[in-house]
Structure formats: C-alpha cells, structure tokens
C-alpha cells in the first residue's frame, strides 16, 4: 500500500462517512468515476490508431 496516500485518503473517507477499507479500495485504480472496477480498463494509447 502507498502509505502516505492511504493515510490522507483514510481521513477523507472517514470525513465522508465511509467506514470500510473496501470503499477506499474502490478508488484505487477503479473506474474513471471512482466506482468499483468490475472489468479491465481500456486505456487508449495515444488515442485511436495513433498519429
């Protein structure tokens, strides 16, 4: 775990009333909106068929 970030995120999460590590984990590498990731992300390398 990335120590510094988890501390700050944990504080934010507590302030928001989020009460589980699972919720925090939802943000880590999750979907673009921070939702839980349920499939691999599609990352467009330099856009489509790069120019």
């Amino acid at each position, binding site marked *: 775990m990335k120590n510094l970030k988890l501390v700050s995120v944990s504080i934010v999460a507590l302030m928001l009333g989020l009460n589980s590590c699972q919720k925090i984990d939802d943000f880590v590498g999750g979907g673009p909106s921070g939702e839980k990731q349920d499939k691999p992300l*599609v990352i467009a390398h330099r856009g489509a068929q790069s120019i």
Partner: protein
Amino acid sequence: MEAYAKAIELGADFIEPDLVMTKDGALVARHEPFISGTTNVADLPEYAHLKSTKKLDGKEITDWFVSDFTLEEIKTLKAKQARSDRSNQFDNLYSIPTIEEIIALAKSRKTTSGKVVGIYPEMKHPYFHSQLGYNFEDALLEVLEKAGWNSYEAPVFVQCFEVAPLQYINTKSTVKLVQLISTYNVNADGSLDFNVPAGDFISYAAPYDFYANGDTRTYEFFTTEEGMRYTANYADGIGPWKPFIISFAKDEAGDITILPKTNFISLAHKYDLKVHPYTFRNEDVKWSNGNHESEYHLFFNAGVDGVFTDYTDEAVKALSTWK
C-alpha cells in the same frame, strides 16, 4: 486531438497522452522529445536551424527537439504517422495538442457507458528535461490542480518509466501513480534480457534516474517481491511490457510458443498494485497469431486490471465477449 476523440467514441475509459515540454514550459503530447518521426518538422525550412544533437537516456540523438520550440512554434507543426505499417491518410492534417486541451476534451465527453473519461498522462524523460532546467513534475501538477484533477479520486493516472519523479509527486499530491517498466529484449527461451548494448537507450532496461545516480538496479528489480513492496510505497499501479506477464519463446525457425503466465500479477496484487500492461496493437501478432480477441482474453484471464491499446475498438470488442 482527433485520435483521442476517436478513442473515446470507440469506448476508451482513459485516453493516454505522452508528454514532453516546450521551450516555454508547455506540456504537449508527443511520444518522444525529438519529433522528426511524428511531425512534418523536417519539411519546414524555417526550423532547419533548430536541428541539434542531444543525449537522451544515454544515446546521442540528432533531430529536432520539442524543448527548442516555443508552444507557438510547435502549433505550426502537423502530426504524421510514425509507423510504416499504418496508413498515412491523416498525415499533415492535425496539430499537436497541449495537456490542457486534452483535459478539456476529456471533460467535454463521456465514455460510451456514460462515465467520466479519464486521462493517463506519461511524463516522458523527466531526467532529460531536468538537465535542461525544467521541472516536469511541478508543471504537470500545476495543470492538474487548475483542472481540479489533482487528487486521488480524480480520473487520472500519472505514469513514468523513471522512479524519482513519481516519488516526488507522491510527496506533493494524492493523484494515482503508475510505475512503468521495460526490458531490452526477450531471449529465445522467453526470459527477459536487461542488458542494453553500449550507446543505446539505458531506459530500455532500467530507470534512467537510477542509472544517472549510480543505482545499478534494472527493471528486473521491480519484478521481485522486494521490488513490488518498494513500488507500492509510492505508486498505485505498475505498467509492464506484456512479456513480464506472459512471455514467449522463439525457436530457430522463428515459430513462437506462448509461455505460461509468470507470478508478476499475483505479486503485484499482493501489494495492492494495479497491473496495466502495454501495448496491445493489431500489427504485433506474437500473442494473437492474428486473432486479436484471443490475445486480449489471454491477458484478461491472467488478471490484468487494464490494457494500453492502440486499437480501442478491438479491446472493447474483446471485453464484450470475455466471460
């Protein structure tokens, strides 16, 4: 910009710009600091005097460098296809975008599933830029801050092949970070070769900032338990070239055998590191033998958390048929 817009239209979750710096400190999207291969700069006599020789990650390059151009000058150039195995139909039509323009595009669109479009900027050669007097990391953070995207929850991953820039950002920001790793070559038996011949780019096999500071560790270190633990101290993910996850052997006739997956993903996940391998492209058929869908499924089944692809439509299609 047109390529990023097209990728969003095709279903990308994130658009990935590689970033380099202009003479006046703007961050623009080019794959390398030198640009004769991806722009029409060599055709423009007014810029002939800007051709120069610089050392980049241990290799001398004679070319036109973005760092010798102002943003205004960069905006007079047109992009062209770098690969000889792709169409040139879009050559000399489109300008080079800034990171601000790319963020504006992302914010103006939604993914095909109605979500926020993310950006996945790569800091290209921060050490090289630092030697020229630039602070790449602060420049990027300033842009993200202005965009309101300098946070852990923002739809942003910042990636880099160097280590210190990511570690620095980790002390300044909570934005998500990804350590990229590479290898010089794949040996015939499928093992990875981290030996770079003299005069070639050191960064093919080791973080250049490590090398420049006398640290002899190559990217092989990042495949170990110690390396994963080290990376997890500052990053949220790791972006390996595909053979780190599933390698291939090649016999004397040149025939390819795909090898079983390594323990890379399980080790990365043990340390809560997301794994986003690069780069899936139709022209590279080692893993697919021409069946692109099967290549994506191979890596999806191995447990990757995302894929860098030149062909967004192929990745989206493969996801739709993946069970």
